[in-house]
């Protein structure tokens, strides 16, 4: 701290995992507000039939931006960068990450990436391709202007940030452990971060390759995805979803880790039920996630045997997920369930993530997916597992670890009211979408037949409740800072390594551990 005499040294040139984690939190919270604004604009447009706010291209642009911002600038930074950076060194009892300076640049690449994404909206007509950016719509034929190139560059920079952060986490997990910290003793959240890092390191370069091929197709006269030049449009679909499916596990695995911790402490237990099966389930999900990508492409004209294979393997991946869900339930069984907001969020996660998984099982069937592909049934499915999976888990983790990081407590009753608002809001928003999808309403359309009006209005109503809930959440954060309800004791068992403050007070000091503990794994 003595060397940091000004804010530039502390916040721009940071090498502290805590400060970098805080930067990630602030950035991803702001990005979440932006993504929420985009979702509100979409739902306002769809509240009544007809074009009310946006024309077709602008609507597509907002839909694309909503997905990219939520995935790449809210969920991934907050989970990996925010929670991961704060908690992994604390849980492993090490002073910092393996590569502190690379940690810093991993964060600072993100504002560059998001600026490029926003810049794409201001050039030509923007990029209205959907987050899957399939050619030919994303190639020079569909989007001839530079907007698509800005998006490609934005994803490249964001991907680089993720890859560097993942290298850091994986190295820290493997080499910066105490000798007594065997792999079995590593906390479940750290296991989830490690497997997520592995997925990122393997999958992100595939996206980078696909993006580079798209860039050269657009600007350097190649024809990777152009049938006129002996290319194949479906090649991009394969490359994208080979990245895209591990990507969705990247979004959810850290959530699994956080929920394991929250459920354990919220139930008054010292251990999660079946830690070894949980670790094996995490590893299985990580590995199987690489071989199921075809279930996003059942309608491209694949061979029936290929469709049968992808259906089967997608159903198989539900097994380790089921192991985890039942282990969480078994952890809660027989425990004294605390009346804390984080427990509300975690319980909501378990129930609604399971519901989203059930609709995923429906979509895993290739026959049914032929009818439901690119309908609102798919939108309902992934919003159940993301809006009610990843987001609920982030709120649970935030409620649990906010006092650790700040030494302050959120208002308990108001936090429960916020949970009720989000709970009701997201369900009113996304449950009717199942019926819309089954009735045949396609995705990514800014106007629809009158017959879909009622459920769309309901979904927009739920979205407005969620929007006001987000305003309320911002108020809760501000109120916590202003009220200064200081944490003086942590009601968590001694098994929780991250809460073992050597100074007995919160928030954690700048340096928790001034040096590596004796018995350092790597030496």
């Amino acid at each position, binding site marked *: 701290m003595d060397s940091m005499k000004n804010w530039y040294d502390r916040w721009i040139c940071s090498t502290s995992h805590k400060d970098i984690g805080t930067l990630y939190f602030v950035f991803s919270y702001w990005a979440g507000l932006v993504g929420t604004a985009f979702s509100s604009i979409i739902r306002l447009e769809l509240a009544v039939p007809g074009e009310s706010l946006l024309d077709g291209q602008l609507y597509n642009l907002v839909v694309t931006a909503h997905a990219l911002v939520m995935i790449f600038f809210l969920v991934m930074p907050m989970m990996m960068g925010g929670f991961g950076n704060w908690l992994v060194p604390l849980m492993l009892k090490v002073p910092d990450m393996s590569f502190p300076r690379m940690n810093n640049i991993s964060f600072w690449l993100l504002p560059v990436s998001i600026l490029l994404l926003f810049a794409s909206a201001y050039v030509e007509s923007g990029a209205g391709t959907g987050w899957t950016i399939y050619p030919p719509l994303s190639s020079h034929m569909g989007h001839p202007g530079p907007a698509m190139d800005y998006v490609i560059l934005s994803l490249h920079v964001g991907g680089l940030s993720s890859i560097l952060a993942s290298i850091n986490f994986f190295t820290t997990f493997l080499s910066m452990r105490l000798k007594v910290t065997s792999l079995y003793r590593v906390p479940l959240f750290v296991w989830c971060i490690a497997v997520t890092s592995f997925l990122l390191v393997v999958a992100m370069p595939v996206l980078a390759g696909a993006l580079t091929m798209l860039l050269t197709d657009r600007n350097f006269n190649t024809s990777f995805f152009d049938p006129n030049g002996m290319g194949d449009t479906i090649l991009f679909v394969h490359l994208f979803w080979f990245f895209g499916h591990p990507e969705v596990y990247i979004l959810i695995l850290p959530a699994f880790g956080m929920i394991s911790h929250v459920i354990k402490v919220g139930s008054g237990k010292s251990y999660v039920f079946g830690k070894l099966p949980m670790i094996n389930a995490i590893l299985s999900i990580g590995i199987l996630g690489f071989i199921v990508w075809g279930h996003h492409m059942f309608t491209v004209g694949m061979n029936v045997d290929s469709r049968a294979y992808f259906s089967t393997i997608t159903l198989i991946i539900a097994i380790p997920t089921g192991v985890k869900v039942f282990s969480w339930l078994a952890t809660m069984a027989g425990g004294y369930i605390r009346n804390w907001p984080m427990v509300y969020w975690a319980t909501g996660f378990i129930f609604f993530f399971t519901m989203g998984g059930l609709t995923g099982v429906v979509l895993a069937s290739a026959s049914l997916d032929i009818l439901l592909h690119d309908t609102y049934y798919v939108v309902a499915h992934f919003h159940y597992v993301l809006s009610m999976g990843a987001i609920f888990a982030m709120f649970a983790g935030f409620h649990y670890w906010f006092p650790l990081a700040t030494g302050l407590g959120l208002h308990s009753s108001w936090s429960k009211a916020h949970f009720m608002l989000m709970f009701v809001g997201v369900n009113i928003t996304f449950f009717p979408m199942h019926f819309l999808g089954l009735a045949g309403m396609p995705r990514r359309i800014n106007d629809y037949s009158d017959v879909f009006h009622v459920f769309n209005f309901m979904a927009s109503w739920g979205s407005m*409740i969620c929007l006001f809930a987000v305003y309320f959440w911002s108020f809760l954060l501000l109120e916590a800072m202003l009220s200064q309800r200081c944490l003086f004791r942590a009601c968590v068992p001694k098994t929780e390594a991250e809460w073992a403050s050597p100074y007995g007070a919160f928030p954690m000091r700048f340096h928790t551990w001034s040096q590596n503990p004796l018995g350092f794994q790597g030496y």
Partner: protein
Amino acid sequence: MLRGRNLVAFSRMAAIQQRAICLSAATKGSVIPADASIDLKTYEHDNIPQAVKDQYYPHLGNRDIVGPSYGTSYDYLDCPDLPMPAVRWGANTPEVLQLREKETGDWKNLSLEEKKQLYRNSYRQTFAEIEAPTGEWKRILYIFCYITAAATVYLIYYANTVPRPSTLNKDHQQEMVATMLMRNNGPITGLASKYDFENNQWKK
């Protein structure tokens, strides 16, 4: 406005002060200073490391450490699944110490009031009080209703201000149906097949 490093320092100071306030006895009666000639070791838990005593007794004052800690610090906590807090709730006043001396004898000699006094000195709440309903649900419900109403009003206002397509108009829909019947759309299984043209009414 506090910011940055000052905010952290302030929070830590406030936390330590609040901790001292919360740990101090909320009891009536005199409080014996820490250096009084009372043998605390008689009433505290065995095998407490000296380092722990040195760290915590200056904050606890005249309160005994009576058990192992649940978390990382020796504090009092009311929790049904943690019935034995590490620290006694009340301070060791002369009245309480007399009762505690009497407690070492036959409990039949203790009156009900004395037993209650001993309990309240060791614990802040009974299990019934810990698990008693707080009425918190009312606060949660009114905030939920208030904000949901605000969102609903906003959406209804928005839906009434944007132009709606004519196809949602009942008159327009009836005209469309009449036009489709005039064109005989769906004469076998569709719309026209459900209309009785001779009697000019829908088939029953």
